């Protein structure tokens, strides 16, 4: 039996890897682990992983419609409600529109219209919390 042990990383096709890199590094705090801009590739990390998110500049067309299979949202966790409040303030100041904001989570859009969730909460409660979030 195959036994996946951990969700490791996502790779996104983006229209402009520098624009997307700047979004994830400046507004969410991801760090560059490697980038090959001549190949249109950026790898981003959050700790000692080689990457949790990679951005490949392969797209030129409009983002998918809600009817197409794919990402509903990508979620990143924050430490606590204070950090979520601080994030809310910073994102507002940076002019990033916030969608579906509540006390435990907020949603923003990356440059390719992918929905990104920031949330706080204990990990054991995550599934229950996300049940609510999934309805958005």
């Amino acid at each position, binding site marked *: *039996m*195959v*036994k*996946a*042990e951990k*969700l*490791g*990383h*996502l*790779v*996104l*096709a*983006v229209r402009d890897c520098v624009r997307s890199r700047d979004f994830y590094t400046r*507004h969410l*705090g991801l760090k560059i*682990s*490697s980038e*090959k801009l001549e190949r249109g*590739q950026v*790898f981003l990390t*959050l*700790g000692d*992983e*080689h990457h949790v*998110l990679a951005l490949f500049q*392969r*797209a*030129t*067309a*409009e*983002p*998918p*419609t*809600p*009817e*197409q*299979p*794919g*990402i*509903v*949202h*990508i*979620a*990143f*966790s*924050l*430490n606590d409600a204070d*950090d979520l409040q601080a*994030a809310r303030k910073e*994102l507002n100041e940076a002019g990033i529109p916030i969608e579906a904001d509540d006390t435990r989570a907020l949603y923003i859009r990356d440059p*390719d*219209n992918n929905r990104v969730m*920031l949330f706080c909460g204990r*990990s*054991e409660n*995550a*599934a229950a919390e*996300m*049940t609510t979030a*999934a309805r958005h």
Partner: protein
Amino acid sequence: MVQVQKLAHVVLNVGNAQASKEFYSKVLGVQVSSESEDGKTVHLGLGSSRHDLTLIEGATGPRPNERQPRLIHFAWQVEDYEALKSAYYELKAKGLTIKHTFQHNVTDSIYIEDPDGMLVELYCNRWDNGLEAMQTMGPRTDDLDIDTRIATPRQVR
């Protein structure tokens, strides 16, 4: 400065939540945490969070084409190379097509498609400290011989 702590989960819009649930739970071993009464929303996960993936049945349109922004793939780690090799043969025995068998600088990886055609990577790390290897060597993609673990330059097909 906003500082997210970890990639927590991904939510996917799928054509058939039950078919995708079967794939992720029975083929990849991701456990079902909960699902809605109508079976059209399913949460799956590993470890303490029990939530890495949510499947929502809402896709009625075509798969994104090669020019659209999209999820190229997402990746699940397995314990070690033996687990990856076992997975390779188990998936083949189940009739799944292994789309790619690659060695990267930081991982050995195999790729399959989920029921909506989304590419899913299974990988094992090649270094304890993957970040340092990524920073010093960067990305690389070579063809991998699953039996010998020997990599050769990627053949253009």
